[in-house]
């Protein structure tokens, strides 16, 4: 964490301003960076060079269109399991082996395994969940998003 803190201290005020502003969005037009640069009070060239620097140093995870998963026609859900410690490694290997499992996190709770499933069609979600439960021998709790209120990072740095 000390390393992370010193990493972020390497950013100057302009870098921070760029990151903060561009989290909100870039216009879709011929020269989006020029439009953003104008808003930031810097040149388009200056913005592009700072952005490549920030990207190369690993400060940017992604810069581009953020897609709405469900609207692309696929299935998406969050699922959770309660896995005893002595079975954890085995179950984790079994779950991770599914290509449909995109992310899997251990969390500090009785529900200690949380994964995101992404499938080609919404119908496949149920099959994969049943299959994971049968293979591991532990129940899988499906926690699909029923309503969404905000998605997107807007960290103030």
């Amino acid at each position, binding site marked *: 964490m000390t390393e992370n803190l010193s990493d972020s201290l390497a950013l100057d005020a302009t870098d921070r301003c760029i990151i903060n502003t*561009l989290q909100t969005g870039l216009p879709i037009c011929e020269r989006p960076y020029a439009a953003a640069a104008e808003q930031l009070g810097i040149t388009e060239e200056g913005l592009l060079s700072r952005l490549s620097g920030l990207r190369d140093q690993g400060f940017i995870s992604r810069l581009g269109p953020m897609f709405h998963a469900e609207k*692309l026609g696929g299935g998406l859900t969050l699922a959770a399991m*309660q896995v005893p410690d002595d079975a954890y490694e085995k179950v984790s290997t079994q779950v991770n082996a599914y290509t449909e499992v995109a992310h899997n996190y251990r969390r500090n709770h009785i529900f200690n395994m949380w994964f995101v499933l992404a499938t080609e069609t919404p119908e496949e979600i149920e099959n994969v969940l049943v299959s994971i439960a049968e293979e591991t021998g532990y129940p899988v709790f499906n926690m699909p998003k029923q309503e969404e209120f905000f998605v997107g990072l807007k960290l103030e740095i």
Partner: protein
Amino acid sequence: MDAIDRQIITATQGGLPLTARPYHQVAEQLGLVPEEVIQRCQRMLEAGIIRRVALVPNHYKLGYTANGMSVWNIPDTVVRAMGVKIGALSFVSHCYRRPRHLPDWPYNFFVMVHGRNRAEVETKVDRLAAVLGPYDLEHDILYSTRILKKTGFRLHHQRIE
């Protein structure tokens, strides 16, 4: 969404080129005219297929290493009103209604909170509790303690955040 839209999605899934005219570069790559790529992206934005074109910071690298999934049991009747209020807070990155699984899981409202450490996350969760007031029937914070798997996920060959 047609085949050309899908081509554009596939071409931009890894990000938009860092060049003065990024859509021109995408167009050239796909053998389309730039105006068509721009128009189609604008249309996908209006349709909500593209949420927005934006920068996603690497929050770990920026020092935000404590990411708490706060989970809340709040009355179903107020979820929407509270969701709008909570989603507007600057330190909230995701805010969803999800199903309860009684008796094991009483929580129906998930709010991701990012902080530089757990104390900071807890302070922010206290602020959420204050906003929810009497509707906060019970809540908990789950921290990720290990990444078991993390791959960019793809739907129809498209990578999603």
